[in-house]
């Protein structure tokens, strides 16, 4: 180590070890790409052109859609409530052109003239029973899966961290109550609890996120509690307390940052399982409302058309598989990198 250089911190070591793991890094890259795909879904699959030149003026209909949605702009009179494809076919003259996204269909665009088509040059991944483009639905479906994974896990990590931290730090009656509650919650089969609760609630993405969130916190709470029990008697914690730090400050500024590693690992695997839970629920018809494109709901649709329509089954399933595998690979890599026994 060079003079004056700070020693490598814990998270730097973890990150270095993670980057040395090629498979895990690949998983992380796929996850990032999926997030980019979800964020830019409107620019990849849309029935509106990205750029359009009409009567020698340039228009950006996809961006315009965002602006109109936010309320800062309005559609020009000729474009209000029109299908741009029909518009281009009818009104375009010499010199007018439109550049469409790679997939020229919106996820909910119904076309009764092209029902249940296998994959072709027009519909890369085929169409469903009311002519919706599967490629577009798969692209837009990534939004549901990724956001459910992220939000649901954030909810339960937050709940779990707070409960686990208080239980581990204060001990005594707080710990007894928390531990008993954790034990009871762990006894209840999560998937069945979720299904039961969902049966009482109207279908919506938010409800699914919340239900997954409030049913899964015990694992995180247990991990955090364990870490706190280990850490709270260490010298630096005692030092912080001796310097007059409040309980709140000791817990959240001093102990928590050093107890996060196992929680992060659990959270990564948790995202994978939350995505699986959402798609299972949607597959069973208890998940997102039917109008929302989600990988599970495409598969659910495929199930009603069984046993024909293989493209309805194969592609959304592959998307789920790819996402879940990537998250699991990242989780494995993180676990190995954070394992103090392997520290190099």
């Amino acid at each position, binding site marked *: 180590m060079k003079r004056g250089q700070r020693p490598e911190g814990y998270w730097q070591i973890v990150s270095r070890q993670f980057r040395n793991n090629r498979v895990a890094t690949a998983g992380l890259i796929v996850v990032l790409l999926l997030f980019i795909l979800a964020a830019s879904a409107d620019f990849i699959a849309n029935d509106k052109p990205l750029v359009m030149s009409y009567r020698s003026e340039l228009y950006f209909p996809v961006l315009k859609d965002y602006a109109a949605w936010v309320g800062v702009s309005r559609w020009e009179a000729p474009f209000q409530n029109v299908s741009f494809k029909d518009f281009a076919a009818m009104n375009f003259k010499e010199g007018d052109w439109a550049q469409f996204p790679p997939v020229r269909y919106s996820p909910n665009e119904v076309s009764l003239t092209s029902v249940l088509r296998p994959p072709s040059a027009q519909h890369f991944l085929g169409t469903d029973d009311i002519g919706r483009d599967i490629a577009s639905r798969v692209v837009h479906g990534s939004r549901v899966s990724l956001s459910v994974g992220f939000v649901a896990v954030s909810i339960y990590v937050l709940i779990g961290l707070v409960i686990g931290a208080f239980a581990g730090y204060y001990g005594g009656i707080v710990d007894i109550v928390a531990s008993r509650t954790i034990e009871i919650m762990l006894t*209840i089969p999560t998937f*069945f609890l979720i299904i039961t609760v969902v049966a009482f609630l109207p279908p919506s993405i938010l409800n699914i996120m919340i239900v997954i969130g409030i049913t899964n916190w015990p694992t995180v709470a247990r991990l955090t509690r364990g870490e706190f029990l280990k850490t709270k008697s260490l010298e630096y914690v005692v030092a912080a307390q001796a310097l007059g730090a409040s309980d709140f400050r000791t817990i959240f500024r001093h102990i928590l940052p050093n107890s996060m590693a196992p929680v992060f690992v659990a959270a990564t695997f948790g995202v994978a399982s939350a995505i699986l839970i959402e798609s299972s629920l949607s597959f069973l018809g208890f998940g997102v409302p039917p109008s929302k494109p989600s990988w599970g709901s495409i598969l659910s649709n495929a199930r009603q058309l069984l046993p024909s329509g293989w493209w309805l089954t194969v592609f959304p*399933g592959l998307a789920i598989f790819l996402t879940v595998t990537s998250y699991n690979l990242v989780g494995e890599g993180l676990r190995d990198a954070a394992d103090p026994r392997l520290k190099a």
Partner: protein
Amino acid sequence: MRSYFVKRLLLMIPTLLGISLVSFLIIHLTPGDPALLKLGDTEQRSGNQLLAAQIIDETRALYGLDQPLHVQYLRWLRRLVTFDFGESLRDHRPIIDKLRERIPVSVRLSGISLLFAYLISIPIGIRSATHPHSIGDRITTVLLFGLYSLPNFWIATMAIVYLGGGDFWRVFPVYGLASPNAAAWPWWQRLEDQLWHLVLPITCLTYYTLAVLSRYMRVGMIEIIRQDFIRTARAKGLGERIVVYRHALRNSLIPIVTLMADLLPALIGGSIVVETLFSIPGMGSLSYEAVYTRDYPLLMAIFTLSAFLTLLGIFLADLLYTLVDPRIRYEKRAAA
């Protein structure tokens, strides 16, 4: 030993109380009372006001929704203890009868699946652990990792598309557990028919458990093989076979035994998708129907039952520990 297990059983009582409380909360804290929800459904379906009013009264009476909360909870508790789950809202049959019909089907299905999972995963785990980083080990590791992330509803749907006689092959039957006219056949033909019906559902139920178990088996075995007593066994000249199967295997079975606790409730929860897709009349498809038709008394019964099975699984796992590993003695821990 016996005193430990008695204590262990007694400790289950507060947990059971907690579970009953959670299930009670689910019924009451969800927006809209179940009686009204039921009313909404029925009005949409039939528009029959009289019937709807009757259902409200029935549901109210069943849960005692007109009573104060603590009375309601005590009633719910009494019904749980006596396994009196009431009648199904859908066909007014006692729920206990429905469960009695469905449980054996699921138990048989999951039993076979568990048996296969353990029978296949233990040898795979041993083989991978005794030849770590060999080509065989790497291939199985990757394959098992893949299986681990495959959603079973996808695999089941794919199996039906490709093997169940759609646009592709028609290899396996995909409906129920026996052919409709099988009752007239001789027994060997009936047996063959039943086995043929089981192939796809069992495969879909088994592969995930198989992947999980093999991974645990491999890790457990690798850790054991590194230990001193294995080196000692080798040093005194024992054959590799005896070292692995006599000395290492027994010790590495412990983590696998723990998983029993998770697998028992899967008797119900794990097969919801598979049973529904293959139209198998077990607990899984019963749960699906209960949710789908909003049959709340049935739902709460299944919920309580599965929580109870989890508790039982944990208890059995503790019991099996002592069989697999004689070092674990519970008197000490119980006394402490």
